[in-house]
């Protein structure tokens, strides 16, 4: 398996779930290419966006959503989770590991959340390796 020197990770997030500035400063220090895509509500995420993130080269994609009882739009994070579950099935159908896509509840008060999440994703990717593509 090819080792991932600098993994590509795309994070979709609800603007209410993380502190963007803090997150960016943290990412800056790590050996990861992170694309941050902020959404006014995580429920705006769609299967096609997640798939296109993989097409654009992401090794892993995560959707950071607010805790279920703290969604400003009531069911946004529940909807986001369902979209992700559906997209995971598509990934499985096309032979991509479901583990590459995740949905995680994050509270804005937890300042270490994103760093922990990225650590886990990177750890997971060391098992999965890069997505196999045509030379």
């Amino acid at each position, binding site marked *: 398996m090819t080792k991932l020197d600098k993994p590509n990770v795309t994070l979709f997030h609800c603007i209410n779930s993380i502190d963007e500035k803090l997150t960016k400063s943290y990412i800056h220090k790590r050996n990861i290419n992170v694309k941050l895509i902020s959404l006014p509500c995580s429920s705006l995420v769609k299967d*096609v966006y997640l798939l296109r993130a*993989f097409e654009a080269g992401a090794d892993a994609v995560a959707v950071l959503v607010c805790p279920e009882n703290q969604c400003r739009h009531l069911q946004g994070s529940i909807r986001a989770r369902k979209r992700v579950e559906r997209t995971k099935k*598509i990934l499985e159908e096309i032979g991509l590991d479901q583990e590459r896509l995740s949905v995680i509840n994050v509270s804005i008060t937890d300042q270490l959340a994103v760093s922990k999440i990225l650590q886990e994703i990177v750890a997971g990717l060391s098992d999965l390796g890069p997505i196999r593509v045509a030379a």
Partner: protein
Amino acid sequence: MIVGEQKPVREIIDTIIRYKKLLILGCGTCVKTCFVGGEDEVAALASALRLALKQEDRKIEIEEQTVERQCENEFIQEAANAVARNEAVLSLACGAGVQALAKRFGDTPVLPGVNTTFIGIQQKPGLFTEECQGCGNCVLAVFGGICPITRCSKKLLNGPCGGSQKGRCEINPETECAWQLIIDRLTLLGQHKNLRAYIPPKNWQPSISGGPRKYIREDHII
């Protein structure tokens, strides 16, 4: 509306495998409403196919387009240029749309990406149920607006069978017993009389049993 389900991606790949340039053509009417064949689904399927084929070292160019209605020639016409640019068309419309395309573009292979399932309604967001079988001889007036041909698993005109329990159908507890609904509705409407009446056997000639059907409006034919 006509309801369908997207075919498994694997099955779709098997049908498109020999083509290098593919048009995925959506339909903006029924199948869009039931989330199988509108712009969003065309885009997601295109992305999934590209990802899948990339992993298999196969190259494919996918073009995406969605027309208002694939079952009408005027709308299909809008896709003519895109069809001409591609080797095949993967249609995300119902079976009527697929066949309309095949008729219009006689020398281009047209493949179905959707399994057309039924004529139904959206009960609540994300839940679609079958309501009509297009039997050609509507009996809803007698049954309080609930179709036993479609919604009773045994098509009973003189139901319910002995398997109706607590308002549920014996073949699937998640399915409502159509006859319980009919009885409730006719009772509400004060039409008990219909429940006691012997409903004679159905004439299936106007249905698909009578062969493929046609509807002709002379005044519209020039």
